[in-house]
């Protein structure tokens, strides 16, 4: 049986949450849940679930405010995440110097702690004037077909 999909979003202006909801709405035939990183207890990470991380970038290549406590908890508690698998989709705007760096910081931290990234690294560039929803859904469908 397929693992339950937990979609963790880190946002500042709501785009990542909006895309996370659309990803969940398009998941057929398996359990899924959308959770704000701010409300997520990192002790709940389990290899029984599959994680989709969707996170934006703010300031100058910094984490969005919604991802800061999550990142801080990972840094402070250094949980052993071996066995945990995740896919990641980064939001950014290529007109800024540090394009899409926020998600990369989360990606690095999770891998440092033993989690395994699977599938392609998804990205969306807000400079196109679009929202990430359509490309994030397409990316997640492809990812979930094999995970």
């Amino acid at each position, binding site marked *: 049986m397929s693992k339950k999909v937990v979609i963790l979003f880190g946002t*500042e202006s709501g785009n990542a949450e*909006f895309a996370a909801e659309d990803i969940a709405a398009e998941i057929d035939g398996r359990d899924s849940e959308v959770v704000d990183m701010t409300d997520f207890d990192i002790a709940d990470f389990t290899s029984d679930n599959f994680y989709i991380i969707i996170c934006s970038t703010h300031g*100058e290549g910094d984490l969005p*405010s919604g991802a800061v406590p999550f990142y801080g908890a990972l840094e402070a508690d250094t949980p052993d995440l071996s066995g945990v698998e995740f896919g990641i989709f980064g939001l950014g*705007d290529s*007109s800024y110097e540090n394009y899409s760096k926020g998600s990369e910081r989360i990606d690095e931290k999770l891998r440092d702690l033993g989690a395994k990234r699977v599938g392609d690294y998804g990205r969306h560039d*807000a400079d196109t*004037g*679009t*929202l990430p929803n359509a490309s994030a859904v397409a990316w997640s469908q492809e990812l979930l077909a094999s995970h």
Partner: protein
Amino acid sequence: MGQNQVPTVAIVGSGPSGCYTAQFLRKRFPDAQITIFDRLPMPYGLVRFGVAPDHAGTKAVTQQFDRLFERDGVKFVGSIEVGKDKSLEELRAEFDVVVLATGLSADRQLGIPGEEKNGVYGSGRITRLINGHPDESLEGIQLGERVVIVGQGNVAMDLIRLSLTHPEELAGVGVDREVADLIAHSMLKQIDVVGRSEISDAKFDVAMVKELGKIADVRFTSDAPILGEEGDPETQKRIDAINTLVDNSPVTAGRVVNFHFGWVPSEINGEQHVSEAIFTAKHTGERKALPADAIYTAIGFTEAEAAAVKRDAHISEITDLETGRLAQGLYCVGWLRRGPRGTIPANRADAKMVSEAIIEDFENNQLEKVTV
């Protein structure tokens, strides 16, 4: 209100603070009747009429808000100015919850002699014009070779960039051609950007300064003293950004932009039209006269004297601006609540907090309609 009931909600103003509030309330009350009123026929406030038209990524947030009206059953009622076309009292009698999200639209004044002369334009007016706001027109606007911008925040940075962008490029991002030709006119030779703060406290975001470096054929200068390492890394980033901009710009170019730090505006001279702006050095009292064919003031925003809804007229014994509570069933959010500071995302955090106050009051049965 009985146990099974949900509140009816009116939000006045469809800028980001109003729209985010509708999002949060919709999540908690899937079946509530939520209506957003705006004095304009079209929604989204300063995201549509303030944010620069070449920042498509920032404007894209409106596509989140579109879904409120297209799918989530939130109603938009345009062309109703509350306090004029419909009184606030009427609204409060009709709805259990009224949230004021009307922003702060008036340009802050310099408060110096000569400010009323022709050729002095508020940045709010100019940015509304660039964005096609229905209240604005080109009438009476006359620029020239030299523009002085007073203020060094992000709005000033937008004005510098837009003034130096080719009109065709502006038209390409939706700016009216006549407006583009006026704002980014080929006569423009010099922009002086003057702030009262020293570079260490300047108000701009570093990313905005870096963006200026992408414009061709501009020489940048700065009168900030060359400083060594500053203690504070944020301060150092601002200094580095300006230094890099200046160092990487060509020695000779068709246009020049001069940054002046630590100068307080003291007077505007000219017959009927402006001819120069006078500044006084904050520390030494030295005077500086900058010739000007036009002056843009970009020193922030405040409540318009003619605003149809004024926040402080509704202060009551239960007012708590920290949480957005004004009176029973009446709330405020966004710039109107906390002042003209902060970007679009800050309004999301604000809307979340005020929505939580509304939900709490609902759950504690504090929303009984009052006769007002």
